C-alpha cells in the first residue's frame, strides 16, 4: 500500500511542474500550447498508482499529469515543450504528442479510444495480463468513434479501463450545453460497468481504480471510471471565461494538494515541497540549456 506522503509527493510534483509551465509560458520559453491538469492531479496519481508495471496508458491533450504520475522525467517533458532534442520525443511531438515506455498520447479528441481498445486486444491475444487505461474528457463524448470503440471493447471482452475525467467543461463550453443524457448511461448502454466518484482525494480515487482494474483482470472485460473533478486552470494558456469567485471557492474545497497536505505532518509537507521545488527548477534549467531539435536527414540542404 502506497502511503499518503508518496501520493502527496506525486501530486505536488505535477502541480509544481504545471505551475512552472504556465508561469514560464508568459516569458516565451515554450512554444506551441499546453493543457495543464491543475486541480485534476488526483485523477492521474490515483489511477496510475493503481496500475502495474507493464500496464498501458493512453492519454490525450491533457497528458502531462499522466506522464508525470507514470514516472516520466520532468526535464524531458520541459525539453519537449521547449523544442529541444532531449525532449520525450525529440521535440517532434510537443506537449500533446508523447510516447514514453507504455504511455502514448495524441491531440485529437476521441481517436485514441479505438487505438487503446486495439492495444487491449493485442495484450489479450498475447496473454500478457496487461490492462490498458485510456483517459478521456467529458467533452470527448461528442466524438462518434468512441462508441464504436466501446462496442468492440465490450463485444470482444477487452481489458480496457476507460477513465473519464469529467471536469464538466470542454475548452470554454459547459458540457451541460452539449451533452444529452448522461456519461454513465452511454457507457452502460454498451454493458460496460461504471464506477463514479466525485472526489479530489487521490487515496480515495486509488481505491476505486484498484477495484476497477481487479475486475478487468478477473473478467477480461472493460470497465469505466467516471471521475468528477475540477479544472483549476485555463483550458490551455489563458482562455478561462469562468467566474473568478466560483473558481476561488472550488480551489478551497477541491484542491488535491491541500486535501492530502492536511492529513500529513506539516514538516513533512514542507520538506517535500522544498525538495520538489528544487527538482522542478533544476529540470527546467537543464532543459533550457539543452540543444534545439534538428533534422538529421539532410533535408535542409
Amino acid at each position, binding site marked *: 500500500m502506497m502511503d499518503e506522503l508518496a501520493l502527496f509527493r506525486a501530486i505536488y510534483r505535477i502541480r509544481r511542474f504545471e505551475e512552472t509551465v504556465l508561469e514560464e509560458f508568459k516569458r516565451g520559453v515554450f512554444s506551441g500550447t499546453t493543457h495543464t491538469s491543475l486541480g485534476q492531479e488526483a485523477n492521474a496519481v490515483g489511477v496510475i498508482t493503481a496500475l502495474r508495471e507493464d500496464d498501458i496508458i493512453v492519454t490525450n491533450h491533457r497528458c502531462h499529469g499522466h506522464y508525470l504520475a507514470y514516472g516520466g522525467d520532468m526535464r524531458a517533458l520541459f525539453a519537449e515543450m521547449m523544442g529541444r532534442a532531449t525532449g520525450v520525443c525529440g521535440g*517532434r511531438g510537443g506537449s500533446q504528442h508523447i510516447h514514453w515506455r507504455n504511455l502514448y498520447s495524441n491531440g*485529437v479528441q476521441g481517436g485514441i479510444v*479505438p*487505438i487503446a481498445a486495439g492495444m487491449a486486444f493485442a495484450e489479450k*491475444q*498475447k496473454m500478457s495480463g496487461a490492462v490498458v487505461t485510456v483517459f478521456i474528457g467529458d467533452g470527448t463524448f461528442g466524438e462518434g*468513434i468512441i462508441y464504436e470503440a466501446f462496442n468492440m471493447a465490450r463485444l470482444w471482452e477487452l481489458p480496457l479501463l476507460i477513465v473519464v475525467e469529467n471536469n464538466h467543461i470542454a475548452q470554454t463550453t459547459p458540457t451541460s450545453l452539449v451533452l444529452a443524457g448522461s456519461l454513465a448511461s452511454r457507457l452502460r448502454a454498451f454493458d460496460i460497468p461504471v464506477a463514479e466518484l466525485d472526489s479530489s482525494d487521490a487515496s480515495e480515487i486509488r481505491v476505486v481504480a484498484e477495484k476497477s482494474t481487479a475486475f478487468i483482470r478477473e473478467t477480461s472485460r472493460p470497465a469505466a471510471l467516471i471521475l468528477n473533478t475540477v479544472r483549476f486552470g485555463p483550458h490551455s494558456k489563458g482562455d478561462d471565461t469562468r467566474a473568478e469567485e466560483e473558481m476561488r471557492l472550488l480551489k478551497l474545497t477541491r484542491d488535491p494538494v491541500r486535501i492530502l497536505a492536511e492529513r500529513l505532518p506539516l514538516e513533512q509537507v514542507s520538506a517535500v515541497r522544498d525538495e520538489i521545488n528544487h527538482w522542478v527548477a533544476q529540470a527546467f534549467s537543464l532543459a533550457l540549456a539543452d540543444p534545439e531539435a534538428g533534422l538529421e536527414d539532410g533535408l535542409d540542404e
Partner: protein
Amino acid sequence: MNKTVLSSLNAGLLDALSQDERVYLLGEDILDPYGGSFKVTKGCSSAFPQRVIATPISEAGLAGLSAGMALRGLRPVLEIMFGDFITLTFDQLVNHISKFRWMYNNTVNLPLVIRAPMGGRRGYGPTHSQTLEKLFMGVPGLTLVAPVNFVEDTLRQEPGNLLASIILQTSDPVLFIENKLQYLLPIHQPQDLPDLEISAFSVDKRSAPIFPVYKIKIAGAPAARVTLTAYGYLAELARQAMLKLAYEEELFCELILPTRLAPFDVADVVESVARTGRMVSIEEGGLSLGWGAEVIARVAESLPGAQLITRRVAARDLPVPAAPSLEKRVLPQVEDILRAVRKVARYGK
C-alpha cells in the same frame, strides 16, 4: 484454371496467416461461407478461426483498433469492404496511424495493412465505384501499394506474394489498393506474353518488403517514342493500348508500372522519358491533383531544360455515374489512352 489476381491475393492472405501467428484479418462479412464481398478472404476463417474476425460496420473504429493492435506487436490486416468507405478512416489514417512513428521519434512500429478495393465499371454508382487513393498519396508516413497482373522471372512476385510479404515484413502502415475488375484478370506469366519484354526492379534496394517496378517493352521493337506509366488495374488497359498502337500504327511505347505509389519514386520513369521526351500517365482516379500530376511534376523537375510533352489520362472530375453509358464516358477507357498517346506522339512532328 489460370490464376487470377483474386485467387493470388486469397492465397497470399492464407500464406501470411499460416506463416505468422501475429497476423489477424479483420473486416465486415469476411467469414466463410461468404468470404468477403469480393471473396478475397474466402477460406481464411475456416482455416484460422481464431485470427479472422467479423467486425461491426465501424470503419473508423476498426482502423483505430487495428492500429492499436499493430502498436502492440500484432500484424493486423483490415479489409475495407468498398474502397469508397476508406473516407471513414481518414482521421485515423492522417492524424493517428501515419503520424505515430515519426512524432514519437521512431520509437514505435505500426505494421498495419489496410486493403481497399477501389474502382468502377460495374455500375455500382457514385459511392461504390470510386478510386480514392490519390487522397492519401501525399500523407507522410503512409505507404500506398497497388499490385499489377504481371509476373516476371527474376522477382517472381504475384499480387499475393506482394501482399503476403508486406503483411509479414512491413514495420509501417500500408494502404494496399485493390481493384474490383482487376480481381478477375489472369496473372500474365512471361511465357503468355511473347510480344512483350518484361523486366522488374526493386524500387528501394534497402527496403523489405520489395516493391517491384515493372518495365514493359514490345519485344524486338525499335526505340520507344512515348513513355507510358500506370498502376493497378489500369496497367492492363495500358498494356492493351500499347499492343494496339504497336501492331496497328507502328507507334511504339514503353510502359512503366510501379507497385509502390507513395512515397513517390519516379527514377524509372525519368530514365525512360529522358530518352522519349514524351509521356502519358494513366490512372482511374479523378484528373485534378491526381497521381499523374505528381509524377509529371517530378519528372519535369528531374529533367531541367528538357522539352517534355505530356498528357494525363484519368477519370473526369465528376462522381462516377451508375448508368453504363455514363460511367463509360467518365472513367478512362483504352480509347482514351490511344487518343492521348497519339496526341503526344504527333505533337511537333
